């Protein structure tokens, strides 16, 4: 079985986010980048499936050279080889076109990725890729088992879950608890050194959106404590300061 896992390279969730160039660029200085946590689940499940029934896992990232340490980590976790599409991932449509181009050529049995990235949280790429390839797409997948050419998976739906059966190939957006995150071991880190990381130039593709600027949420205001007997003061503050009544 040939599995393609698409990973994002995103700021760690505890990073302090700031912007430069009139709020159009992320300030990456001092920011720790990680494999997108949902992608990390997808990768962990892919490696488990490979370990159970053989095959190969290829990781794919659309990003510039600075994403390579993140890709190496995926190789250390157990992917066999990697492809980096040398382009800044401007928007979901652009990224989906790049992934679809690789997928067409590679004839994968299964294409996994996170349900969404945790930087822009678009959650659209898996759907677009599937559409471009004419394949089914499912998300968010919380359980995935493969038996020959058939997959059984369960998916979170409003207020419950559904279990589906599907023929390979298809595209899945994954989330926990599809697998437990894997911590790379030392042998994996050493063998990642010699695994193939192929850099390809991007396919001809369109970007249909244009970024205007980013905005951070307003900082949280200070908490004001009001004595429980002082209802008048509470009403005054809600009226004059918070302006909500």
């Amino acid at each position: 079985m040939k599995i393609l896992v698409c990973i994002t390279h995103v700021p760690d969730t505890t990073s302090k986010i700031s912007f430069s160039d009139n709020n159009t660029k992320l300030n990456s200085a001092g920011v720790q980048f990680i494999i997108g946590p949902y992608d990390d689940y997808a990768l962990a499940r892919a490696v488990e499936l490979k370990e159970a029934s053989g095959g190969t896992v290829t990781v794919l990232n659309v990003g510039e050279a600075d994403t390579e340490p993140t890709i190496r980590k995926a190789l250390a976790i157990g992917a066999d080889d990697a492809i980096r599409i040398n382009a800044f991932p401007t928007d979901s449509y652009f990224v989906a076109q790049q992934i679809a181009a690789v997928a067409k050529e590679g004839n994968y049995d299964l294409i996994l990725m996170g349900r969404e990235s945790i930087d822009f949280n678009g959650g659209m790429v898996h759907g677009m890729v599937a559409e471009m390839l004419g394949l089914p797409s499912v998300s968010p997948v919380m359980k995935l088992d493969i038996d020959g050419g058939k997959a059984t998976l369960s998916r979170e739906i409003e207020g419950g879950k559904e279990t589906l059966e599907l023929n390979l190939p298809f595209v899945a957006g994954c989330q926990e608890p599809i697998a437990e995150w894997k911590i790379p071991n030392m042998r994996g880190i050493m063998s990642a050194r010699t695994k193939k990381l192929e850099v390809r130039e991007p396919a001809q593709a369109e970007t249909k959106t244009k970024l205007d600027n980013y905005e951070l949420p307003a900082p949280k205001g200070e908490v004001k404590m009001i004595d429980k007997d002082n209802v008048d003061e509470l009403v005054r503050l809600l009226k004059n300061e918070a302006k909500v009544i």
Partner: protein
Amino acid sequence: MSVHSAEDSKKTGKRNFNDQFESPDFYAIDDLLTEEHKLVRASIRDFVKKEITPNIEDWCQKAHFPYGIVRKFGDVGAFGPTIPVEYGGGGMDYISYGLIMQEIERGDSGMRSTASVQGSLVMYPIYKFGSEEQRKKYLPKLASGEWLGCFGLTEPNHGSNPGGMLTNFRDMGDHYLLNGAKMWISNSPKADVAVVWAKNEEGRIHGLIVERGMEGFSTPETHGKWSLRASTTGELVFDNVKVPKENLLPNKSGLGAPLMCLDSARYGISWGALGAAMDCYDAARRYSLERIQFDKPIGSFQLVQKKLAEMLTEITKAQLVCWRLGKLMDEGKATTAQISLAKRNSVAIALDIAREARQIHGGMGITGEYPMMRHMMNLESVLTYEGTHDIHLLILGHEITGIPAFK
């Protein structure tokens, strides 16, 4: 206290560790590391946050050695990272080894002891001084954690002066007959294999591999430690133990052989103790910003700031010493005296930092809610084993003056 609740973790997909540890890097020492080194550190840090810090307090309070960690250390690759891959090791450089020790001891010195004894004191001598058959027989099983090993040098009456050891073996033609006793041996009660240093008929020190199950060999546990409580310590008793001849390490003899092992382990301790220091500093820094007294965070008082500033100064200096020493190790140039300086310095600053960080936590600092008291007690052993604080002064004094002052 955790900032991330389980709910947060669901929303962001973030690993939900309660342990918030971050290491200081005031002099951008990370710029001296490769991406691979950083991945090694991050991976072992995650491993420690997952497998060690959630349980360590309980293990230590109960003086419980978590035997299950041995396999987990094997799986993550913490045993013998510098041993070549063909023998099950990691084939890594000494900076990686140092970072692994830093992160494990950041979690707990006892856990680091388990790992460094296995790697530097058991696998290292078998790799360096062993025959090809010995390497093939023991190293892969020790690397994977299928077997646990220990290192027997210290005796009841010979600690700082191991050359005076009494444990001895006689050539009986088709085997050796081993007699004597070792004391203070990390891992001994659970060890499958012991690398034992003993004198032959001519009084020359040799290494022998003794296996559990050999008749006359026992490993009573040492109870009542106030230090390294999650690491198991015991004796090795040899009462006419028949050791097969092929279990003698053939390629080096004399006191220099065990001392070479100690060099490798002491190097790891230099980084390890630094990890314990970082954990205490990091806890104190966070607490000083959270704890309010006189209507302000205690971190706004000059006396608390002085403590934090001094901690960071010492950690930064020690980081540079360890990094440089690691490069010298990689080049095969590090000397015993250079390693002594680093081991002694890291442990001393770690103990000071543990005490100061404990003070910053006030009464809370004496409880198991915070790691300082545990690190402080652990570090008392680390100060003594692998050459006491004072013996390292003598090693340095010898280097400076050319005059040995040991006796």
